[in-house]
């Protein structure tokens, strides 16, 4: 086996262990309302942490990241549509970087 494949299989094994072991081990319903509430808030907190400030630094120019963030916030507030919001953010970056390139 090549060295690359060893690295790839280690990545695979460790990553999938973090996903599959907990979901198989915990099969009982948890009744404690605080624990239920904790898990209710997890997705909102984790995703929000991953969005900001990372979205600002993702494009070549951080100005375009700021515009994409604002466009994304407004669009998702009014339209609950993943494809639309996602495309609008990309277009916002493209247009902003085009303008930056011109001026």
């Amino acid at each position: 086996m090549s060295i690359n494949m060893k690295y790839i299989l280690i990545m695979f094994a460790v990553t999938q262990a973090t996903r599959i072991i907990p979901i198989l081990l915990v099969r009982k319903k948890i009744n404690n309302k605080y624990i239920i509430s904790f898990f209710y808030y997890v997705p909102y907190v984790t995703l929000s942490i991953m969005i900001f400030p990372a979205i600002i630094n993702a494009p070549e120019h951080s100005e375009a990241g700021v515009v994409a963030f604002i466009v994304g916030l407004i669009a998702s507030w009014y339209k609950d549509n993943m494809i639309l919001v996602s495309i609008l953010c990309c277009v916002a970056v493209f247009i902003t970087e085009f303008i930056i390139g011109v001026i």
Partner: protein
Amino acid sequence: MEINYDKSVFKTGMKDGIPIALGYFAVALALGIVARNAGVTALQGFFSSLITISASGEYAGFAMMAEKAPYIELAVMTFIINARYILMSLTLSQKFHESTSLLHRAIIGFFVTDELFAITAARKGYINPYYTYGAAFVAAPAWALGTGVGIVMGNILPSKVVSALSVALFGMFLALTVPAAKNNKVIFSVIIISYIASFVFPMIPAFSGISDGMKAIILTIIIASVYAVLFPREEGEA
């Protein structure tokens, strides 16, 4: 008796998987460029992404391959970056109908990526695995294909296009979180607090060199715990 799932949601899942697939393809192109620099072949990159499906994990992994890091370091790093999946996986474990088979649970576990987790967790009621399968059926191949294409031709794509595509997944995350804040002040505040915390946290000297994965874990545990105590959910609340 095992619950009978409505398999027609597979199509709904496929539809919701399209924006994820687009975002994955774009991000995977960038990942492919990193993999290429580590000496990974297109076939290896495709295979790696197909079985691992982890943007930040593979990114760090390929970077460590490039510097020939020891296996144990790679394993520890991968674990730290991906430890947030433990939280997500536990969250989903609470949304299964009790009679859901181990096989369904394991396959859903396999597909706990940030995005597939998010759309699975966002659905009302018990998890219907076929919904997630539909989304994964569209999204996972796009991730693997994007990695392979990135390795072969990542360098010839116009940088303006790669740059624009880099925000696709963030747009999706916004669409998964912000709409719930419209009619719920608690969610509204938890989102704002999370943005602020995420921005300020790396400025604290003790945490300045921390990985993004570790930051997400620490802040998620702190913020979600505080909110669970201050604003516990009542039984049956949607």
